[in-house]
């Protein structure tokens, strides 16, 4: 197992190298540099002089070929330095560090919610398989799964932000209200929680639909097995069969899904945070792309890719943990 882990981690590091190198080459070939884009926006008296421009170019290695720049970036990374954001004039690690908890707040909450809600839903649909209520739930979940998150997000905004404007039920995009600073600590928590409602719904419904369908299809396979029939013949009650005998065996694929959904949560954050103006990593990435803020793009790419890799590794390890038949060499 240890040997396997080391190999996987080494392989993951190689993958990270490939991805970051490719992205570095890409961002350096984007039309416009952060400095020239800046110039176009500034008024004449603010413009950077020639010598100042040179100094900035040197600072960000824009005067060197991209592979040299990448090499220098790697060198800085090896002692934990991600560079400084060109726009925000702060270290990239600080800029990203501020955003990570905000994104995790959304994706973590929705992950927990989706897991907690999909269990009873999936089990219920298995127990009532073929009945009218199960068919209704299943059809509804199936349709829900095909609704693109940005469509759902916009519709929710139309209803809760526009149509309910003026009522106490109005929900706004953004992370907190305008008077956030004047609120008491408890009020601040409630305010953020209120702003989380819509994005969390959007984050959750897709995976909820997917997980409960997943549980149901797995359970249906297990329920047909011989040992379930044996349990029934012994006179075990239906609830106990479902929970104690059948469900345990569907746990294996279910647990491994945790790891596999991590990248989807991160990817989804770009679109959702954009819709709800949530100041997380996704919006930061879009903003950095538009502003050609190379160090931030690179830092985020590194984190996104590392999380994706970690998620897959986690899935494989969990696989071995919950299923003793699986071992890695």
């Amino acid at each position: 197992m240890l040997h396997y882990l080391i190999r996987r981690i080494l392989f993951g590091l190689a993958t990270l190298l490939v991805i970051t190198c490719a992205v570095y080459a890409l961002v350096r070939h984007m039309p416009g540099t952060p400095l020239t884009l800046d110039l176009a926006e500034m008024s004449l008296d603010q413009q950077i002089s020639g010598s100042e421009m040179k100094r900035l170019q040197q600072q960000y290695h824009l005067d060197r070929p991209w592979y040299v720049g990448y090499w220098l970036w790697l060198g800085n990374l090896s002692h934990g330095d991600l560079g400084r954001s060109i726009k925000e004039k702060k270290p990239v690690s600080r800029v990203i560090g501020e955003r990570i908890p905000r994104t995790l707040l959304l994706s973590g909450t929705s992950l927990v919610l989706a897991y907690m809600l999909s269990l009873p839903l999936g089990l219920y649909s298995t127990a009532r398989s073929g009945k009218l209520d199960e068919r209704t739930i299943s059809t509804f979940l199936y349709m829900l799964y095909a609704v693109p998150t940005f469509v759902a997000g916009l519709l929710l905004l139309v209803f809760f932000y526009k149509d309910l404007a003026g009522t106490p039920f109005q929900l706004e995009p953004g992370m907190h209200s305008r008077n956030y600073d004047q609120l008491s600590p408890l009020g601040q928590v409630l305010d953020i929680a209120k702003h989380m409602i819509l994005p969390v719904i959007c984050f959750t419904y897709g995976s909820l639909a997917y997980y409960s369908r997943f549980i149901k299809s797995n359970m249906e396979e297990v329920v047909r097995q011989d040992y379930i029939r044996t349990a029934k013949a012994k006179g075990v009650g239906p609830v106990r069969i479902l929970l104690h005998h059948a469900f345990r065996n569907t746990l294996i694929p279910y647990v491994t899904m945790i790891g596999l959904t991590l990248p989807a949560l991160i990817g989804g954050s770009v679109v959702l945070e954009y819709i709800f103006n949530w100041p997380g990593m996704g919006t930061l990435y879009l903003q950095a792309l538009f502003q050609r803020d190379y160090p931030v793009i690179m830092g985020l790419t590194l984190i996104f890719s590392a999380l994706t890799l970690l998620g897959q590794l986690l899935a494989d390890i969990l696989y071995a943990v919950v299923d003793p038949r699986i071992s890695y060499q």
Partner: protein
Amino acid sequence: MIVEREVMANETTINAPPAIGFWTEAWVRFRRQRLAMAGLIFVVFLALVAIFSPAIVGTKPLVCRYKDHLYFPALGYFYEAWENPIFMTDGVIYNYPQKMKEKDPQSWAVWPLLYQDPLRRVKDGEWEGMSGNPIGAGGVPSSRNLFGTNDLGEDVFAKMVHGTRIALVIGFVSTGIAAVIGIVVGAAAGFFGGWIDWMLSRAIEIMMCIPVLIIMLALISIIEEPTIWHLMVVIGVFGWTGIARLTRAEFLKLKQLEYVTAAKALGFRWPRLMFRHILPNALAPVIVPITFGIAAAILIESTLGFLGIGNPDKTSWGRLLSEGKENLQMWWLIVFPGAAIFLTVLAYNLIGEGIQQSTDPTLKASKH
């Protein structure tokens, strides 16, 4: 016993019906699934809308006689150069009904069902007795603008009808690219094994670890003037891993079978073995992720259009949604394109599941 012998005797005399092929049988089973068929019918409907989009809604005549020549200006919606340049030089192009009469009183034309344009606002008096489109938030759906108008007064229905072409082409072309890459990589890995398999499997693993949307956004940003074709290539290049993995698994299984050994013994070389003998048998399970891939490609295109990345086409459904985000009170910019994307994705998912049910002999018939 006697009865059985009689039946057997009968059977030898009766001509057996011609054997049903695998695909015919799959089609028979597919047709029995109502939901999958509904999905298929919807996609066929979309294809018809896409092909006949200039005839359904547009401002260019389908056929016209102008200065003693026959022209088909509506083809310009498919490809700009197909609209005869004479209309450009004569200044007819933005007001066919009035300008054509003005320049050539003898002219006649056959018009689309609805006079609205996907790319510009229809102005006052262009069409006899029809006022121009409203601008701004006033463009609610009406009998003139079935799905309302956007901020600039452009007709949403016209945009959506013409946008069908993008959705369909994106789906097929990018998934086509993904399928070709995926099948070739998967086939090579599964067929040759050894270090080729090792290398290709690692390449697949790397591709699967990439946060796709993140890299796609970076990739599209480097293209100076991205077009829909760039998008298709990018979506295709990132969408092949699932197909490759399935193809590889199928090849690993099939190359062990006797008929492949027999073909090898006959002296056929690897390209023939790979593509003539194994691939056709590996195709059925591979078609399922391809169908889902089409749905995913359409979703990605509309997501990018929604984020405003890559200079989305003016008729892209995703771009309409992004206009809706800026003008939330114009709900028609969200509801109609949103429903279109939802239904298209749902249709492809249903078809994919239908194919899975009808080609996989280990699955029981669907309960739906």
